[in-house]
């Protein structure tokens, strides 16, 4: 074979491979059909309200964080560089720096504020992901597909809230007791809060909301007019993190 013919063949082969993504359009799965029951009738829009006047009343309370860590198999890595966080506390003047100033109420300024993935309406992490490993579901939850993530960490750079964690090493040795109800993650993928979509599917509240006995966390469907979140948001002043970026967070804070 001449070299030129070889090159031609090679290029043809390569362009053939590029058809692969569309191949599934022509093939059918060999097994029974999967009835995809999309809930198109009145799609929910999940949202959470953190009531800062209740949250933190019990000193050093971490019930919600512990519950999340436990059921999602979050590794407990002591090196802060490699820490994995889905929901955690940060001081008010860090979370809401644009709302903090010198002479403000000192208690509020240093108050611990619960932070987690905001499940933005316009999530920057989703537009930057090169493989659609993170995407926005029809009900607004920003999901992660750990099977597909290549670990480029572009989403971490794009998230204005620092809500994403990378598995810098194998997380398994750092999980005290593995919960069978949820998979762990593997080395080299990005993870974050999933609004407990696995619990929502079973009509359960997110673990953090359920764990908060003081009622400081309220979760629900903002598309439902009679939902509690909707009522709170329409009657009380709430703030969101970095609203000027236009990401439209769905985690709201009331003071």
């Amino acid at each position, binding site marked *: 074979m001449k070299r030129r013919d070889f090159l031609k063949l090679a290029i043809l082969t390569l362009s053939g491979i590029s058809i692969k993504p569309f191949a599934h359009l022509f093939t059918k799965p060999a*097994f*029974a059909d*999967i009835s995809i029951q*999309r809930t198109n009738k009145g799609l929910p829009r999940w949202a959470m309200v953190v009531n800062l006047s209740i949250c933190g009343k019990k000193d050093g309370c971490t019930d919600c964080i512990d519950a999340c860590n436990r059921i999602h198999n979050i590794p407990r890595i002591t090196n802060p560089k490699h820490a994995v966080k889905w929901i955690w506390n940060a001081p008010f003047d860090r979370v809401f720096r644009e709302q903090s100033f010198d002479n403000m109420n000192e208690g509020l300024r240093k108050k611990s504020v619960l932070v987690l993935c905001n499940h933005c309406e316009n999530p920057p992490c989703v537009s930057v992901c090169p493989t659609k490993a993170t995407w926005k579901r029809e009900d607004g939850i920003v999901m992660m597909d750990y099977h597909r993530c290549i670990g480029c960490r572009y989403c971490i750079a794009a998230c204005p809230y620092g809500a994403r964690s990378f598995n810098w090493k194998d997380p398994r040795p750092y999980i005290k007791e593995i919960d*069978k*109800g949820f998979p*762990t*993650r593997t*080395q080299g993928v990005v993870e974050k809060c999933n609004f407990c*979509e696995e619990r929502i599917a079973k009509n359960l509240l997110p673990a953090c909301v359920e764990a908060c006995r003081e009622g400081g966390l309220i979760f629900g469907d903002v598309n439902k007019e009679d939902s509690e979140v909707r009522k709170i948001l329409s009657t009380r002043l709430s703030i969101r993190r970095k609203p000027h970026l236009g990401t439209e967070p769905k985690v709201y804070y009331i003071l």
Partner: protein
Amino acid sequence: MYDRGKIITGIIIFLVLLFIPFLYNFITGKATYVPEPVIGTSEKECVESKVFMRTDHMKLLDEWKETVVRHGVRNYKARNGKTYTIDITGTCMECHTDKEKFCDRCHNYAGVEPKCWNCHVYKKVAGR
């Protein structure tokens, strides 16, 4: 042909190296070895037929993965009319409890290393 000696010796060495595994298996009798996975359950039927599961379980699992993660659908309607919860830990491993004897025996034989268990949990891991 230039360097005839070198080329022919090279080809012979290459062929010998190529056939060593075949020879090895032939002499040691390993060529006839068939792995014997332990099903680990008295249940009569699986999610799909035995033949299908044997040849296509990886395709089923791949489809399951897509359905749950990407479409949020957690039920699988099998051809026998029953509905199963899509859950590798809760559904598959509930019957096939022994991963080493069920999964690994064939996978080791076939030289495949599925990455399922890097994340998904089976009893032993959860119990430790």
